[in-house]
């Protein structure tokens, strides 16, 4: 019985829990500021910056830097590529769950 899935089938960029939390949040919010995302994901400034950078480099999120009331404002939103990758990741998870169910039934 093979209950595992090969690592190459899972998107390692999204698979990391903190990045998955960021992408999941942005999947339902049109746009979020760094501060809001930090509050909802409970990540530190440094962690959130690093993970956001990884997601940005992968083309999954778009980071926009501007000024509001003379203060820097960083906002993030999911790109089309990011949404497609997220949907694909969810499909993969569902596939694994389904495969697990089937193998449990067989047992």
């Amino acid at each position, binding site marked *: 019985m093979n209950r595992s899935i090969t690592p190459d089938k899972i998107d390692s960029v999204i698979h990391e829990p903190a990045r998955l939390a960021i992408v999941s949040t942005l999947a339902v919010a049109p*746009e979020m500021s760094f501060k809001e995302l930090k509050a909802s994901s409970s990540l530190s400034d440094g962690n959130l910056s690093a993970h956001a950078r990884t997601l940005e480099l992968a083309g999954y999120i778009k980071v926009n830097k501007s000024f509001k009331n003379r203060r820097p404002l960083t906002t993030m939103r999911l790109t089309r590529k990011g949404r497609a990758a997220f949907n694909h990741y969810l499909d993969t998870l569902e596939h694994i769950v389904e495969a697990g169910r089937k193998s449990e039934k067989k047992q």
Partner: protein
Amino acid sequence: MDGHEARKRLWEVQRIMECTTLCTLLPDVSAIIGGVLAIAGCFLTYAITGALDFQAALSLSQSSQTALFVIWGCVGVISIAQHLLISARTIRKRDLPVIVRPGQLAILALAPSVLVAIVLSVNLWMDGHIRYIAPIWIICYGLGVFSSGLFSLRPPRVLGVIFILIGAVGLSFFQQYGLVLIGLSFGLGHIVFGLLVVQREKRDGER
């Protein structure tokens, strides 16, 4: 990755998405309508009692007291109904699940405060201290909104704190201005909150 871990991941994703969905479902137009209704209730009450103090209701005739009950009952029922209708429309429009779990949590967070407010109101009414009812409702509602905001973003928590402050100051120093307190909190507070949410949504939509 096995099925168990994948299921855990899916649950986590679902939880995060539900929490964020609730954030994007912050009341906007319904908050403004609720605020306008509260202010209308204040004006109608003033027209009947001729005073800013709810205590004045005790010296009114039975029919006038009944009218006050009906006015505030209608304000409460219509506010909740329009909020539910507008939320349902938004949920349909955004193709979200009808029952949002964080929404249920928010209602659960609000329920104890509302229950406490009802119990206190009945007791204060029976003891003839009805001027305390308005600030008590403001504080209890603020506590409920603050607690429900724990499942959401910052704006509801800020609204909750504003209600608590208005209620606390009102209860301590301005109990005799119950109508003004209601107008400021349930009226103006909701209108400003709704306008800020509308502005925020507009800004998000433009980007």
